[in-house]
């Protein structure tokens, strides 16, 4: 721990009087009671050129007699500091060698400035007026600097968010000033500034506006005191190479210690992404709803001095688990409930509203694990980003119970409202592709029978999606592209599955070329599913006039 200094106290004056001009600068520095601390490892004092390096060592001795010791290592703003206070620390080069420094304020970031010229470097700190006693400035050395003879470093702070910056803490050359009972602290600066570390300036009392601190190093090395040891941290749970099954909750525990203070917090990361923070020992978090993947867990411990240490990475693997779920559908094949193998409901979409305007409950069991199923009405795929139901040719908006695009076939089918969904009867019909069924008529293949045509139903204007009836029963049409062909839309809400289901009732052995033929089977199925096709649209009408009496009764 560093020694304290009662700046400008009677105990300090002997030092000022005895010191060389360099020491005069040090005395001025004491006006503001800077605390110079570094997180380098404790080493024996090292003076490169002993005769010239009197300031810190000598000051320490002299000022220590003041008996005023303060907290050298704390880096915390006072409780009365304004919220969102942001200050920027900087180093102003005056003269000196090439050095690299960074000044860090309390959590607001850092700035690295390079001193590019050998010689004297002066440190000057300008504090905003709002800074009170207990405030501290941290000066962090970034890369193994070594301050040369006659180094003077000047540092300053300025407000970044509108707070007033009052000026410096002391004026150079005004030795003996500020004897107004200002108690400042000056740490022991006797160790080599040879590694990355931190220098802190702590003000036990509020410095007066306009004060400034200056240091001058005439010779030797700027030293640091011991004490700024970084914490140690390691992840104790899970073990490296741990394997889990998704979705899961992973408990991550870290062991963090600080030899010269306390561990303020431990932040946990998974592959670089933060997953939680714990501020008290034992440092542990529960990382919930972890999805499948490979992760690299790390913990970053921060001690009360702001020093951080990152633990070794712990790789874990979360595997996807194949599970059996049971989808329960309603009479329209709309998924309404999903249960797992333990018969626990993991997803449900109640029919609270006919057009599907109620969201699905993705966690009905309340275990915090969401189960996602994008399927909605048959043929629809829910897009959570647009809140629309993708319906192949169109998109359906459940809020208004209609499509957001007009029917691509225009007014040729259904109704004058080309945006409507299943003619407003969503409890009875579905529209799997947003298109209607068509009845197509073509010659027989490969032998076109004079004055006779073959009927089949085509879905979605797709010749590969057809249904046909012939002496061998119902199946996809064997020659949907056979020439010359004409297709006409049906009238009514489309329901592909219903049509196919009804046509499948036509048996091959019941086929009758002049009676229960392909056209009659199609019409009976269309009627059963609520669609219509004008009888005179059948080939050879009125000889083949459409549904026969027994076909009509069967469809009802």
């Amino acid at each position, binding site marked *: 721990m560093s020694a304290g200094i009662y700046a400008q106290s009677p105990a300090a004056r002997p030092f000022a009087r005895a010191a060389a001009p360099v020491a005069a600068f040090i005395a001025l520095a004491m006006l503001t009671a800077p605390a110079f601390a570094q997180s380098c490892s404790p080493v024996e004092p090292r003076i490169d050129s002993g005769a010239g390096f009197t300031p810190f060592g000598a000051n320490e001795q002299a000022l220590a007699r003041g008996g005023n010791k303060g907290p050298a290592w704390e880096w915390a703003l006072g409780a009365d500091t304004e919220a969102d206070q942001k200050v920027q620390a900087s180093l102003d080069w005056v003269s000196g060698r090439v050095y690299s420094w960074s000044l860090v304020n309390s959590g607001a970031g850092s700035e690295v400035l390079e001193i590019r010229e050998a010689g004297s470097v002066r440190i000057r700190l300008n504090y905003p007026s709002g800074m009170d006693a207990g405030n501290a400035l941290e000066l962090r050395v970034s890369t193994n600097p070594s301050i040369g003879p006659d180094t003077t470093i000047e540092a300053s702070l300025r407000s970044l968010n509108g707070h007033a910056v009052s000026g410096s803490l002391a004026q150079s050359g005004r030795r003996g000033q500020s004897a107004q009972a200002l108690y400042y602290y000056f740490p022991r600066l006797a160790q080599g500034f040879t590694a990355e570390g931190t220098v802190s300036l702590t003000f036990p009392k509020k410095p007066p506006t306009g004060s400034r601190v200056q240091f001058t190093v005439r010779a030797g090395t700027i030293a640091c005191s011991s004490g700024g040891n970084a914490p140690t941290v390691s992840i104790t749970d899970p073990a490296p190479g741990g394997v889990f099954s998704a979705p899961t909750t992973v408990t991550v525990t870290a062991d963090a210690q600080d030899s010269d203070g306390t561990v303020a917090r431990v932040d946990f990361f998974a592959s670089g992404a933060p997953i939680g923070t714990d501020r008290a020992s034992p440092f542990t978090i529960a990382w919930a709803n972890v999805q499948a993947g490979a992760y690299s867990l790390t913990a970053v411990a921060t001690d009360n001095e702001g020093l951080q240490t990152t633990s070794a990475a712990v790789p874990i693997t979360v595997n996807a688990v194949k599970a059996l779920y049971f989808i329960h559908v309603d009479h329209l094949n709309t998924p309404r409930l999903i249960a797992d193998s333990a018969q626990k409901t993991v997803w449900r979409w109640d029919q609270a509203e006919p057009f599907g305007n109620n969201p699905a409950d993705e966690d009905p069991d309340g275990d915090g694990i969401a189960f996602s199923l994008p399927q909605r009405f048959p043929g629809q795929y829910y897009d959570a980003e647009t809140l629309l139901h993708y319906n192949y040719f169109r998109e359906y908006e459940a809020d208004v119970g209609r499509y957001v695009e007009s029917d691509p076939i225009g007014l040729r089918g259904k109704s004058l409202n080309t945006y409507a969904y299943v003619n407003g009867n969503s409890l009875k019909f579905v529209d799997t592709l947003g298109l209607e069924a068509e009845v197509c008529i073509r010659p*027989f*293949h*490969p*032998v*076109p*029978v*004079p004055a*006779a045509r*073959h009927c089949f139903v085509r879905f979605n204007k797709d010749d590969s999606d057809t249904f046909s009836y*012939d*002496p*061998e029963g119902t199946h996809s049409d*064997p*020659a949907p592209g056979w*020439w010359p062909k004409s297709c006409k839309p049906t009238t009514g809400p489309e329901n592909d599955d219903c049509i196919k289901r009804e046509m499948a009732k036509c048996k*091959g052995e019941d086929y009758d*070329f002049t009676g229960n033929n392909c056209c009659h089977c199609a019409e009976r199925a269309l009627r059963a599913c609520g669609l219509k096709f004008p009888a005179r649209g059948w080939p050879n009408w009125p000889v083949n006039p459409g549904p026969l009496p027994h076909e009509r009764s069967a469809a009802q």
Partner: protein
Amino acid sequence: MTRSLPRIWAGGMAIIVAAQLAWFLSLGTQTFSQTLFALLWASSGIAAFFVSFLSPRGKVAMGLSLAVPAAMLIALLNYGYQLIGHASDFPGLRGAMLLFAIALAWNGAICGIGTAAGYLLSRTGKR
């Protein structure tokens, strides 16, 4: 000129066979047309006309007799068309029988018209 009945009948069948083969060949080469389609179903009438016109005797029987082999031939060709892997609206044996029945009815009517025309024309020429 003396014409034998078998040769005349064979000549009529040759017309039918040629028309039907031409149709199925056009399916394979994707060169089918309305003309070939018309020829397919009119060939039996044309054949019946010539057979009836040229036959020295039994004109009606000779002309009408073409209807049966013409229907059988098209049913067989349809069946063979399936056997080589093509789809048909008259699948299987049941479909072949259906097509035979349809073709027989059609050819019977067409052959009747052709036979009548040939018969009447030959009689008119003799006067």
